[in-house]
């Protein structure tokens, strides 16, 4: 299978390790991984700000960048959901481009659900001797049904003990531009999330979306808590030794 990695703009800028972890997991699952250079962002900031024209222009660029691959994989439920669920909506009134949007949507996946649901991966080879808890990022959970797949793979990580997070399905308050448009409300939401995470006693919080992780990490750090924050792909790929947790000193 020839797959294209959609790195996502946040991973590109903040945490390339997640992109390399995704590449490693995909290769372990038997995929030939390529990274089209013409990719930037999925256009979600424009789409969710009501700017359909820019969102469409960016989507057309994504169509071209990822044409011809068997599958397109993003280490993010939010960006994969944008392509899978929202591109067809964006072009619903555009008969010329709608087929392209639907065609791309049908072969675009969130990383971990692709590994489990399509590649039929049941285990990974990784070691992480920690008690961890897991936050279900909203778009992956509710738009793409990502819930059991990460838990199944995490169960095969040597040493890892998963302690479920109460309210794991409640939003962390990131919400793209929401977190800077309404910082006080976002603060209340992420404070509640950080409090719930701390109450589990887990040493590490994992999730599948970097936006949520930046938000959660930033709040845990501001509260002075020493809880490690990582993307689930880093743990599944066994790459936790290569880079400190998100927001931690080098």
């Amino acid at each position, binding site marked *: 299978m020839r797959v294209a990695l959609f790195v996502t703009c946040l991973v590109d800028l903040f945490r390339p390790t997640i992109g390399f972890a995704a590449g490693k997991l995909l290769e372990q699952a038997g995929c030939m991984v390529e990274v089209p250079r013409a990719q930037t962002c999925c256009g979600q900031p424009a789409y969710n700000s009501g700017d359909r024209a820019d969102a469409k222009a960016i989507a057309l660029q994504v169509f071209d960048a990822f044409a011809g691959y068997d599958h397109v994989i993003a280490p993010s439920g939010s960006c994969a959901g944008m392509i899978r669920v929202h591109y067809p909506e964006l072009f619903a009134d555009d008969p010329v481009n709608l087929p392209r949007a639907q065609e791309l949507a049908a072969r675009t996946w969130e990383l971990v659900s692709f590994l489990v649901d399509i590649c039929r991966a049941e285990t990974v080879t990784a070691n992480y001797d920690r008690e961890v808890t897991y936050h279900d990022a909203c778009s992956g959970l509710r738009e793409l049904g990502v819930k059991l797949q990460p838990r199944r793979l995490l169960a095969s990580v040597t040493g890892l003990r998963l302690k479920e997070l109460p309210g794991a399905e409640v939003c962390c308050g990131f919400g793209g531009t929401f977190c*800077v448009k309404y910082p006080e409300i976002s603060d209340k939401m992420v404070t509640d999330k950080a409090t719930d995470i701390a109450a589990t006693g887990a040493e590490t919080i994992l999730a599948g979306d970097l936006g949520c992780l930046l938000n959660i990490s930033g709040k845990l750090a501001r509260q002075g808590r020493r809880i490690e924050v990582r993307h689930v792909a880093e743990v599944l790929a066994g790459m936790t030794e290569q880079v400190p947790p998100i927001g931690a000193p080098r």
Partner: protein
Amino acid sequence: MLATSRNFEANARAGLANDNLQRALGLARTGFPVRRRLAVERLPEFEELREAGRAIKDHTLAHLDFYLELYESNVAAAGGKVHWARTPEEARAAVLQICRSVGAKTVTKGKSMVAEEVGLNEFLEASGITPVETDLGEYIIQLRHEPPSHIIAPAIHLMKEQVAETFRAEHRALDPARSLAEPRQMCDEARATLRPRFLAADAGITGANFLVAETGSSIIVTNEGNGDLTQTLPKVHIVVTSIEKVVPSFEDAATLLRLLARSATGQEFSSYTTISTGPRRPGDLDGPEQYHVILLDNGRSRLLGTEFQDMLRCIRCAACLNHCPVYAAVGGHAYGWVYPGPMGAVLTPSLIGVEEARHLPNASTFCGRCESVCPVKIPLPKMMRHWREREFVKKLNPPVYRSVLSLWAWVTRRPTLYHALAELAARALGWVGRYRGRFRSLPLANGWTAVRDMPAPEGRSFHSLWAERHR
């Protein structure tokens, strides 16, 4: 009701700083969602029921003119009268005319969000008629001169101690020695005060959860029985409701009632489901002598055929409020008008204008929990996004936001430039943050760093590293 939706940000800050509100919301956060989940788990066909509910409402909305006229003719056949009201003014005038025609001095009221929407209480008071709310929550907030903060639990923003204080301040006959520590005791106190008011009322005003076209009936659900006393004891029963409440048949209403109670409170059925068809008939033992229905449009018919039509499926269960993390953070008053939470974020701009209500559809993370619990599958986030699209076209967003967005989109469409800038930013921020791994403050990012740290980038962009390793 006078809207303060324009001040959403300030309203939200006030809500976040209100300790009593935060304590009350903390209790509600788990209560309603847990009860709903348990009720849904007990009903294996709940998903099919949601689909059936959606289909009933879609069918009715597609033929709304037909069912409304059928409903009107059947109300008339049962001896009642429908009063069409395009605007809140027309609705208020119709109620006043009916009240004056029987010389009404006091009216009892069951909970009606449409009555809140048209500002009925203030209007009746100004016209010399005393309205008495009889739903316990509505009664409490009427005593406190506050608007409702929730569409099925209007006083949910209050702790029980505040309710006790209110009763002590407002009930002059209340013995100071009498305990009001427990909800039961407050309920008894309210009941004792309200009972003579029920008997003295000249007219009773209720809302309607559903209107049944095939029989001309109105249906209300309550858990207190106050609606029954409101609509059967006085000489006149006035139903104040809106056009999208109509459904074709009793069968349809029964399907929606099964969804409503489970979605709202986690009950299988509300304690009281009361059906009214016209006034008292010859030989009936009780019931009103007159039966009137005020059918409000107030902008709803304008939504038909638009991207907002699905909103008219709403059956006002409040599941979306109960599962919304933004509502749970700021409370209902922040939304500044009658309808809060996700359903309000879509409906309010439709009814009072997107200029006034611009913030409401923006104050969402699009987490999607509302849509996932909606009993009639209204795509609430999608419709909030449609409001954002209208705002964008009308240039209602702050100019700085538009400029930044436009610049970002311009760069995003130029991959070579984008990658160069991403590498530059990753290197610069990564270098500055190389020891601590995060920033406590960052220029131009105050919205983020005011409340949380910003993790520092690793120091190189993914695409630069990938290009180096795959040359």
